[in-house]
C-alpha cells in the first residue's frame, strides 16, 4: 500500500512539475505589431467609420512579413464540357477542384449590415489541432484584437461528428459571422446549410469545401494550392533543366492537397517541360520514417534516373527525404516542397531543398477574419480570396525567418 501511494504521489508531483515548469503558453509573447486598435481612434465616429480607419496592413506577423497581404485573383478558364472525360494529366480534368467556388451560384446569402466590425461577435470552427493551426489562431487573434471582436474558438479535433455538434453550439451563440474551416470538405455541406438557414454569414477558410457547401458561403479564403504548385513546378523544371525523371511524395490520402500538390505539378510539367518523366508517386502519410523508407526504395529502384522530388509537405516529409538522400549519397537530387515550416526553411537554407511555397499560417487565420470584417463594413467580396503566391528560395529565405511553426 505504501508503495502504491508513493507511486501515485510521484506521478502527481511530476505532472505538476510539467505544468509549472515546462509550459510555453506565453500568451504575453504577442508580436509587437504596432497595430492600430479601436481604442486608439477618436471618439464621436460611427462604428463603420472607426472600423474602416483601422490599418491592419501594417500588422507584422511573427515571421517579419505583413500579416495581411493583398489577396490574389485568378484567371478562370472556361470549364471543359466533361472534365472527368479528360485524362488526369490534362489540366481540364481537375477544373472543378482547381476553380471551386469561382462560378458557384450562391443561395440565401445574408446581407451585410454595413455597420462596421467593431465589437462584433464571431465563432471560429477550426478543423483540429496542429502547429499550423496554432499559428493560424495567432493571426486570427491579432485581427480580432485590432477590431475588438468578441470571438470564440471551437476545435473540431479532426472529427466530423464533433464539428457537427459544434455547429449547433455556434448557432446558439448567435454570432454575427462564423469562420468555418471544415474537417471534411464534402460532409460540411449540411452543416453550412444549417448555419445559413439560421441567417448567419459564413466565411469558409483554409480547406475548399465541395460545391454543395460553397453556395452557402459568403466567401472562401485560404492558400491557392493549385496556383502555388503550378508555380513551384516551373521552378522545379528550371532547376532540373527541364529534363529527367521525378517522383512525388503525396499528402494524406483524401485531403485536398493530396490532389492539388500532385496533379498541379504533373499537369503543369506536361505543358512546361514535356521531357520530364514522372517515375513514381505515393504517400508516406507525412511521416518521416515512412518517407525515408519510400524515398530510399525509389532511389534503389530508379537509381540515376531519379533526378528530382516534389514533396507535398516540408515538415516530416522533408526530414525523411533529407535522411534518405544522405544515406544513399544522392544529395544531387533536386527537391521542392510545400512550405513553410521551420524544417522546410532550414532545408532551403542548408541547400537540401531548392524551393518551398510560401503559405503564411498566421496570414491564413488573419485573412479569414479580415474578410468577415470587410463583410461587416459592407464591402463587396470576391467569392474566393487566395493568399499571395510565392516561392521561397535560398535567396530570400532569411526574410521569412523565424518560422511561424
Amino acid at each position, binding site marked *: 500500500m505504501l508503495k*502504491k501511494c508513493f*507511486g*501515485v504521489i*510521484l*506521478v502527481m508531483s*511530476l*505532472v505538476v512539475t*510539467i*505544468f509549472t515548469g*515546462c*509550459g*510555453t*503558453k506565453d500568451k504575453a509573447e504577442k508580436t509587437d505589431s504596432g497595430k492600430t486598435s479601436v481604442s486608439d481612434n477618436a471618439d464621436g465616429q460611427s462604428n463603420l467609420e472607426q472600423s474602416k480607419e483601422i490599418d491592419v496592413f501594417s500588422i507584422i506577423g511573427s515571421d517579419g512579413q505583413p500579416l495581411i497581404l493583398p489577396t490574389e485573383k485568378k484567371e478562370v478558364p472556361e470549364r471543359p464540357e466533361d472534365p472527368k472525360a479528360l485524362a488526369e494529366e490534362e489540366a481540364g480534368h481537375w477544373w472543378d477542384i482547381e476553380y471551386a467556388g469561382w462560378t458557384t451560384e450562391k443561395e440565401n446569402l445574408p446581407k451585410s449590415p454595413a455597420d462596421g466590425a467593431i465589437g462584433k461577435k464571431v465563432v471560429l470552427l477550426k478543423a483540429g*489541432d*496542429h*502547429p499550423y*493551426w*496554432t499559428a493560424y489562431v495567432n493571426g486570427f487573434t491579432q485581427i480580432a484584437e485590432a477590431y475588438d471582436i468578441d470571438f470564440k474558438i471551437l476545435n473540431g479535433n479532426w472529427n466530423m461528428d464533433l464539428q457537427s455538434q459544434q455547429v449547433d453550439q455556434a448557432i446558439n451563440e448567435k454570432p454575427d459571422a462564423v469562420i468555418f474551416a471544415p474537417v471534411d470538405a464534402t460532409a460540411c455541406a449540411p452543416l453550412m446549410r444549417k448555419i445559413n438557414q439560421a441567417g448567419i454569414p459564413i466565411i469558409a477558410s483554409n480547406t475548399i469545401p465541395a460545391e454543395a457547401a460553397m453556395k452557402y458561403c459568403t466567401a472562401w479564403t485560404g492558400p491557392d494550392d493549385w496556383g502555388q504548385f503550378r508555380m513551384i513546378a516551373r521552378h522545379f523544371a528550371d532547376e532540373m533543366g527541364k529534363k529527367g525523371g521525378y517522383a512525388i511524395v503525396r499528402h494524406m*490520402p483524401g485531403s485536398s492537397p493530396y490532389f492539388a500538390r500532385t496533379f498541379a505539378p504533373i499537369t503543369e510539367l506536361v505543358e512546361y517541360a514535356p521531357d520530364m518523366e514522372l517515375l*513514381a508517386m*505515393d*504517400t*508516406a*502519410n507525412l*511521416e*518521416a*520514417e*515512412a518517407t*525515408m*523508407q*519510400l524515398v*530510399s*526504395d*525509389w532511389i*534503389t*529502384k530508379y*537509381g540515376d534516373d531519379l533526378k528530382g522530388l516534389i514533396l507535398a509537405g516540408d515538415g*516530416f516529409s522533408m*526530414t525523411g527525404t533529407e*535522411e*534518405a538522400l*544522405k*544515406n*544513399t549519397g544522392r544529395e544531387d537530387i533536386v527537391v521542392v516542397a510545400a512550405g513553410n*515550416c*521551420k*524544417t522546410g526553411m532550414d532545408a532551403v537554407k542548408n541547400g537540401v531543398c531548392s524551393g518551398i511555397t510560401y503559405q503564411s499560417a498566421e496570414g491564413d487565420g488573419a485573412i479569414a477574419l479580415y474578410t468577415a470584417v470587410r463583410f461587416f463594413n459592407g464591402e463587396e467580396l470576391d467569392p474566393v480570396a487566395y493568399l499571395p503566391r510565392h516561392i521561397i528560395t535560398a535567396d530570400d529565405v532569411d526574410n521569412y525567418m523565424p518560422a511561424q*511553426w
Partner: protein
Amino acid sequence: MPAKDNTALSGSRFSNVDNKSGISKLFDKAGVYVIALCLVILGIIVSPTKFLTPDNLLNILRAVGMLGITACGLSFVIYSSQMADMSVPSAMAFSGIITVQFLHLGFVPAIILGIIFGMLIGLVNGIVVGYFRANAILWTLAMQFGMEGIMRYVWSGNQLYPDLEPGTSGAAFVNIFRLEVFGIPFLIIVMIVLYIIADIIMKKTKFGNQLKLVGSAIDAAKCTGINVRKTVLYAFLISSFTASIAGIFITSMNKLGVYYLGEGYDFKSVTAIVIGGMALSGGRGNIWGVLGGVLVMGLLNNILTFIGIPTAVQNVFIGLVFIAVVALHTYKLRKVGKDYA
C-alpha cells in the same frame, strides 16, 4: 516454488500444442524467419540486381529500427497476457518532448529525464492494470488520449525545436539518430542490444520465468506465490522504457518534439509481435521471433514498393498478414480446446 518449476508448469499447459512432428516444430520455432527467407527470395526475383545490396538491406533495417525497439518492450506486456499497450505513441512523444524541453540542463540529464517521464506512463499503466486490474487495452487507450490532451494543452499544440547551434546539447541530441558506429547506424545497434537483453531477461531470469507463468496460467502463478501485480507492473515499465528510447530516436530524427510523434506505433508493434509468433493470450513466443516479425514488416514494405504497390495497399497487405496469423493461432488453439490466440 522455484522459477524452474514455474516454467515446467506453464509448459505442461501447452504440452499438447507442442506435441508435433519435427517439421512442424521447426516451422513453429523458425516460422517467421521462414517467411522472411521467402520474402528475401521474392525480393531477389523482383529486383535481382538491386534488392540484395548492403545499402538496401541497411535501408530496411533503418526503416524498422524504431519499430523494433517499441516491439521489443511491448512484447513483455503481451507475453504477460495483457494483450497490448496502446499508450506506446504517447510515451514516445512525451519522452521526446521532455528531452527537448530539458536540453538546457545538458544532454545526459535531458535524456534521463525524457526516459523517466516516458516511463511514468508505464508506471501508471502498471499500477492501474496490474494492481487495480483494469482492462489493459481500454486503460492504455484512455491513457493515450489523456496524455495526448495533456501534451497539447501544456505545449499549446506547438512543436518544440532544440537549439541546433554546433556544440550545444541540441546539436548532440539530433545526432543520436544520425550516429554511425563502424558504418552501422547507432539505432540498429541499440535495437540489437535491447533484443539481447530482452532475451536474457525472458529466458535466464526469475522475472522472465514468472512472466511466462503469469502470461500462460495466471491462476497457477498466483498459487505459486508469484506477485502477479508486480510482474505486470514491470512489464508495462519495460514497454514504456523502450517506447521512451524509440521516442528519443524519433524526436532526434525529426529534430523537434510534438505530441503526435509516434502515432501508429502501437498497432504496428502489435502486428510485428503477432507476426513474430507471440500469442496475444500470453506466455508463448520468443523475443527473436518478434525481431523476425519486425524484419518481415520491413521486407514487405520494401518489396511492395519495388513492385510499385502504393503505400495504402501495402497497409492492406500488412493487415491481411496480421489477420492471417491471428486466425492461424486461433485455429491451432481451438483444436486443443483453447478459446483465443
